[in-house]
């Protein structure tokens, strides 16, 4: 039996291990250049922490076992939960903002999709805690772009950004029941154009028409203009304003080639509270990174404050770089 390896686990040997180490070093040196302090969090923690930090559906994917006193433990399925708790408790007296980065393996017993084979993934991530607003959002976006550029992936990547409050504002304005809101979210998320139009016809309000043409949700600045033509509720407008402000900054930094606005990215609405981002690289069939603003998280540990961050998947990046992007 000892010759067998559990599903989703693997070795890295020689050149591949070196490449992996190089990618990790590049990311960590970029973080360091922006004054992010490295943090090493416990590999094992109470399951409750992760349920609180990630939501039940995500935390349940983790490996679980029990402590001597019978309390449920988990092999960490993410790092952010632990950093948020640390900021709110251990470091509650430290002057803000806090900047932390890490390179740490996370474990998921159940993967999210069939394409996701690995159950151990190393996250290269950062968290900026204690500041809100465009400047903080921009800082983490610039970090992500800089890491990708240093890995020579600049011309082969796309970072999509959205503000989840645009959808939330529309859903609240329409007064949708939980089930209907989830249906609308799912139809937008899967870009099911015909079903979406059918669903929207059942609503008397025009507001949601902003989402009726999935192809118009993805692009550069013009996406915001199209959305503004139909969206009138104050909550969504405020979110559109802040997204536009962010986009203007991205343009003025000349980074707009690597970025795209995607108002259809509504996959983790319950977690993020403002900016959400996903990172795609040619040669990888799924996103290689994600992140966003999660102002609600530290509050659940006793100290509510703004926070934003992202993670890159080291294993997925190593795989793409190791192949040299031959898949395309």
């Amino acid at each position, binding site marked *: 039996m000892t010759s067998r390896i559990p599903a989703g686990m693997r070795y890295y040997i020689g050149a591949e291990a070196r490449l992996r180490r190089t990618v990790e070093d590049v990311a960590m040196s970029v973080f360091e250049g922006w004054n992010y302090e490295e943090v090493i969090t416990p590999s094992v923690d109470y399951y409750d922490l992760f349920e609180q930090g990630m939501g039940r559906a995500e935390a349940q994917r983790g490996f679980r076992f029990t402590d001597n006193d019978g309390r449920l433990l988990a092999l960490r399925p993410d790092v952010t939960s632990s950093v948020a708790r640390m900021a709110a408790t251990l470091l509650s007296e430290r002057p803000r903002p806090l900047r932390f980065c890490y390179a740490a393996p996370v474990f998921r017993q159940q993967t*999210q*999709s*069939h*394409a996701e084979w690995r159950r151990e993934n190393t996250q290269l991530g950062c968290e900026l805690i204690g500041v809100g607003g465009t400047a903080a959002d921009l800082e983490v976006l610039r970090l992500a772009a800089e890491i990708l550029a240093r890995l020579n992936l600049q011309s082969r990547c*796309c970072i*999509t950004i959205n503000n989840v409050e645009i959808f939330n504002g529309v859903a609240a304005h329409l007064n949708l029941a939980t089930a209907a809101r989830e249906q609308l979210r799912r139809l937008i998320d*899967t*870009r*099911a*154009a*015909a*079903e979406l139009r059918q669903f929207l016809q059942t609503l008397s309000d025009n507001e949601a028409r902003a989402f009726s043409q*999935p*192809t118009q949700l*993805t*692009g550069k600045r013009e996406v915001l203009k199209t959305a503004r033509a139909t969206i009138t509720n104050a909550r969504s407008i405020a979110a559109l304003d802040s997204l536009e402000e962010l986009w203007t900054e991205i343009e003025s930094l000349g980074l707009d080639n690597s970025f*795209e606005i*995607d108002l259809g990215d509504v996959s983790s609405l319950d977690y993020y509270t403002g900016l959400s981002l*996903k990172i*795609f*690289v*040619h040669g*990888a*069939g*799924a*996103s290689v990174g994600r992140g966003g603003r999660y102002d609600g998280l530290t509050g659940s540990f006793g100290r509510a404050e703004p926070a934003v961050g992202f993670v890159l998947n080291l294993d997925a990046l190593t795989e793409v770089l190791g192949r040299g992007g031959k*898949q395309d």
Partner: protein
Amino acid sequence: MQESALALLARAGIGMSDDAVNSRRLALVDETGQYRFIFVKPADVPVYVEHGIADCGIVGRDVLLEAEADLLLPLDLGISRCRIVVAAANADAMTKVQGMIRVATKYSQIARAHFGSRGIPVEIIQLSGSVELAPALGLADMIVDLVETGVTLRENGLTVVEEIAVSTGRLVVNRASYQLKTEEVARLVKALESTLNGGQ
């Protein structure tokens, strides 16, 4: 599915010569040279697209529901329409459920989700074909299967008890490809969409 999908693509200006299609090669390039086609079994379509080996795919909704694939579904192509149903010997079978039922099917995920959402305990008996035989031979009380005309069901003494979903061919797109090849994907979606609208 393959025939009607190829016919639809040809009408949208993405054609392949008959010789090419009949050549039994599993990977082909269309006449414009813009698209590469891969021919795989229906159940493998979501696999290729989820991994991003193929950017887009055409596959029935039945396969997608069964695979629980995480894909974008921009277009319902309306081809190869059929229904996913629960069938049994008696039309009132569902009202006589006691304790639990045995369900034979090729679609174990769909069956489990369907009965599960209604709180009915089921024993799923996974078969790979000729599911209609199972009730007559006493292997199962009901079946969950794909029905096009209903002839096969009738010939085996079964009637439709419930319809779970309608299945048609769908265009599916990989999430990363949608962001990284935005224009190419949009062009394909648009070509197919205007062909569908023009045909109605």
